[in-house]
């Protein structure tokens, strides 16, 4: 059963990419709705299958790990596959209505969208270092394409910046892969994990290169300069995809590398250093978000800040007790999921708001709470999750990270976590404040279609509810995993 599901999961996005390239935007929309339904169903089924049967390796082409490419289908991977299906579907549905179907270049939206999806699934399931590189490139190029789609000069500039950053990051990663291959003669992460004994300098350099490349692609402070222009200027559904999912892909790889190899190749300095950069991202990103005059820039800088939390994974899992490490991993996982949902909701809602007031400026929102409470409400709910207030997923994540920080004695991260929440509140409430202002001549609002309003609301509610069902979601992380790699290494 699972075999069929995996095949469906891999096949659908690629096939839909090819098919939708042959169609225009409108027909592509119909086709994509079908595709999203299929992907959603397959992802759900796979999630439940793994819930019941545990994780496994899937050997592509029937060739096992070191020779062929094996996919690692474990609880975490299928959870992210499901997350991608949820956010992807939401953005796809939104885009179908939001984007102007009459523009000739929109026909390329769907192929890029589906290639992006395929790349994301490739990353979540990837267990092969080089395959991860190819998946990353697939993601980067389609993401850049989406940013630039039909763009004016500013969009192109943002896209070019993004492209160059992404390419540099990929090459740094690939260089690390080359070193690993030179040392171990394999690309399978599981096999490397088994062969790796201690911290050889060469491999430390390799890990550093890969982490640096991935950090650049994830827009970790101070390598974040490319992100806000790109995420701020793309069309809202695209921004939602980029902020919600795309930047998580490179982080996911970094996290996987760290969890597999970090115990032998990492050092306290590296771990704390990554944490400090993350903390700086939280503070600096939030501050910049607070200062932005444009609505979408606020949301984009908020992404820079929220990504910062993710990098607390490094110090909180390095040389700490097993339960503490687990707490941190769970916290980070929740943070990824809740940020993906909340940020996608926020961008989509921001898109609606912009559509409604016909301006991207925060100041233009005055009085909109009067007319568009629904999208504003979605925006607000998503904001609650970003602030880390209960009962949202963001709060659950923050709670677990707080516990992990306290239990590991690294109390300084507590300060960052709490301060980050306050700063997030500052920039979110700035938007509320602007929208609650009553001005007399503010009756000129456009009402977006209801379907546009419903989608961010659903995402925001998911982010909200995540905190309540965090326990079952997290339980998939501890699922048993069938170890095939061991047999493959020593036949």
């Amino acid at each position, binding site marked *: 059963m699972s075999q069929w599901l995996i095949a469906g999961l891999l096949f659908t996005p690629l096939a839909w990419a090819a098919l939708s390239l042959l169609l225009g935007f409108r027909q592509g929309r119909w086709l994509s709705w079908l595709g999203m339904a299929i992907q959603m169903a397959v992802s759900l089924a796979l999630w439940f299958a793994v819930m019941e049967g545990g994780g496994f390796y899937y050997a592509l082409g029937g060739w096992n790990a070191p020779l062929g490419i094996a996919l690692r289908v474990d609880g975490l991977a299928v959870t992210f596959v499901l997350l991608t299906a949820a956010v992807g579907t939401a953005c796809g549905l939104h885009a179908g209505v939001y984007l102007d179907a009459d523009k000739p270049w929109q026909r390329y939206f769907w192929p890029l969208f589906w290639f992006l999806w395929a790349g994301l699934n490739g990353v979540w399931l990837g267990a092969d270092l080089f395959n991860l590189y190819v998946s990353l490139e697939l993601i980067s190029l389609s993401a850049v394409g989406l940013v630039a789609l039909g763009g004016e000069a500013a969009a192109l500039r943002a896209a070019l910046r993004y492209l160059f950053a992404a390419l540099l990051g990929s090459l740094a990663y690939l260089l690390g892969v080359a070193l690993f291959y030179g040392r171990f003669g394999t690309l399978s992460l599981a096999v490397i994990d088994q062969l790796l004994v201690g911290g050889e300098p060469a491999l430390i350099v390799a890990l550093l290169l890969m982490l640096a490349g991935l950090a650049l692609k994830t827009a970790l402070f101070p390598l974040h300069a490319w992100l806000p222009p790109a995420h701020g200027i793309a069309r809202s559904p695209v921004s939602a995809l980029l902020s919600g999912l795309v930047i998580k892909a490179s982080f996911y790889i970094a996290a996987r590398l760290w969890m597999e190899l970090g115990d032998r190749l990492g050092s306290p300095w590296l771990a704390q250093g990554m944490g400090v950069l993350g903390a700086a991202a939280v503070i600096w990103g939030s501050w910049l978000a607070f200062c932005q005059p444009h609505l979408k820039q606020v949301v984009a800088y908020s992404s820079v800040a929220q990504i910062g939390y993710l990098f607390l994974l490094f110090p909180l899992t390095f040389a700490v007790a097993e339960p503490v490490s687990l*707490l941190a991993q*769970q916290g980070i996982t929740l943070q990824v999921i809740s940020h993906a949902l909340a940020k996608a909701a926020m961008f989509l809602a921001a898109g609606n708001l912009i559509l409604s007031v016909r301006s991207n400026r925060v100041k233009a929102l005055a*009085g909109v*709470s*009067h007319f568009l*409470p629904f999208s504003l*409400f979605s925006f607000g709910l998503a904001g*609650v999750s970003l*602030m880390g*207030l*209960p*009962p949202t997923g963001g709060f*659950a994540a923050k*709670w*677990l990270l*707080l*516990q992990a920080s*306290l*239990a590991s004695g690294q109390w300084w991260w*507590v300060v960052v976590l*709490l301060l980050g*929440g*306050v700063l997030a*509140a500052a920039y979110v*409430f700035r938007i*509320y*404040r602007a929208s*609650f*202002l*009553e001005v007399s001549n503010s009756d000129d609002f456009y009402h977006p279609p209801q379907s546009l309003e419903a989608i961010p609301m659903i995402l925001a509610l998911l982010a909200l509810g995540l*905190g*309540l069902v*965090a*326990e079952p979601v*997290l339980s998939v992380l501890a699922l048993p995993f069938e170890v095939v790699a061991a047999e493959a290494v020593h036949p």
Partner: protein
Amino acid sequence: MSAGALLPILALLSSLLAAVVIFALPETSHRLRTLVNLLAALLKLGIVAVMTWGVFQGIDFSVSFTMLPGVRFMLRADALAMLFAGLSALLWLLTTIYAVGYLEDSPNRSRFFGFFSLCVASTMGIALAGNLFTFFLFYEMLTLSTYPLVVHRGTEKALQAGRNYIIYTLGGGVVLLLGIAWLHGLAGDLAFRETGHFQGSDPALHGQLTLIFVVLIAGLGVKAGMFPVHGWLPQAMVAPAPVSALLHAVAVVKAGAFGIVRVVYDIYGIDFAFALGLLQPLAWLAAFTILYGSVRALTQIDLKRRLAFSTISQVSYIILGVTLFGPIGTVGGLVHLLHQGIMKITLFFCAGNYAETLGVHRVDELDGAGARMPATSAAFTLAVLGMIGVPPLAGFVTKWVLGTGALAASMEWVILVLLLSSLLNAAYFLPIVYRLWFSPVVAPWPAERRWGRLETSAWLLWPPLVTTLMLILVGLLAATAFSPLSWARLIVVRMYLP
């Protein structure tokens, strides 16, 4: 699911669902919205009544599930919970009626009543929370759902007040979160338990526990309006009167006070807190806040601001009662939780009536209002007398029990504080009463409206009259079985006296 688990959830859902329905209703369907509001309020009152009866009979209402690794979401109705739940359910009904009248013809009612219901749901959650974590959950939800109400008018001033409100309360929330997370890391998931959790704990932890106590109280003190973190409360008075009445006089500040009661009794345990030497400083702080609030109230010209400073002062009675080491003081503190709520909401209703009917906001504009609005002014006068502590009204009962408690705990200086505070109460309230009844009308009302035969709209008139009746009854019938005083005694007997 058993009735024991079902009822607490229903109590929450009744207003949560009401909120959802109200948000979904179009702005223009006023009648339907009012109907939903009133039905939900009545339903909730019924549920709470049933639960109170059940708790009296010794039925255990509780429900819990694991929310995060190591943390449970837990609702549990004990006697203390029902005290707060009963108060908010009762006053929600009255305030809803009042708000319907108050907001007639004003915009954004859908938004207002939606968030209003959400607030009440949060308050109910705070009352029924079974552990510190769940308490915090609803505590923050209350913060968020009150913000739109504070800034409801959308004026620059309201937004500024909202900003300060959110800075204070979210700041307090962060501090509280720190305390809760720290405590959780130290001791795990802590359900509220009568004797607390730390009796006989490792002395090596006492230093940390003391620190955590300070952090927790600091976090909770913001909402409770304790000095020096009370600054948001007077400013938040720009909100519409029902908001000031229910939320700032009852739900929000009481949530803070209620939290302090929970922490002192059900987490630390009163004996342990006393042994750590934590109660004494808290008592001083409470006493200072009582006097400070009263003194500040003296000089306020704006009626609602004067009431706000009075609230700051009065809420600290509760905290003072809690810190009096002994059962009688506790009874006093708890009963004041209820009494003060009833009295203060009456005052705010009346203030709202003056504002809505006559356009009067300032104390010096009230000259002669007693003749124009006799019923409202009578209610106001009675509530004022209650506040001052004139027998046999509600406030007298509180002060009497508190005084007795202070004597029993041999903290005689508290009596002095009580006396001084009563004097100050009289000093800032009685001039208003004088103006109402004995000053002649000197100028036309700033913005008068007329509603037929009655002095003001019936929606606005009945709620203060009902609460006035209540504040007389709870005083007169304090000795009967179902009075708040008896209930507070029941709580103390059940929970704190083995």
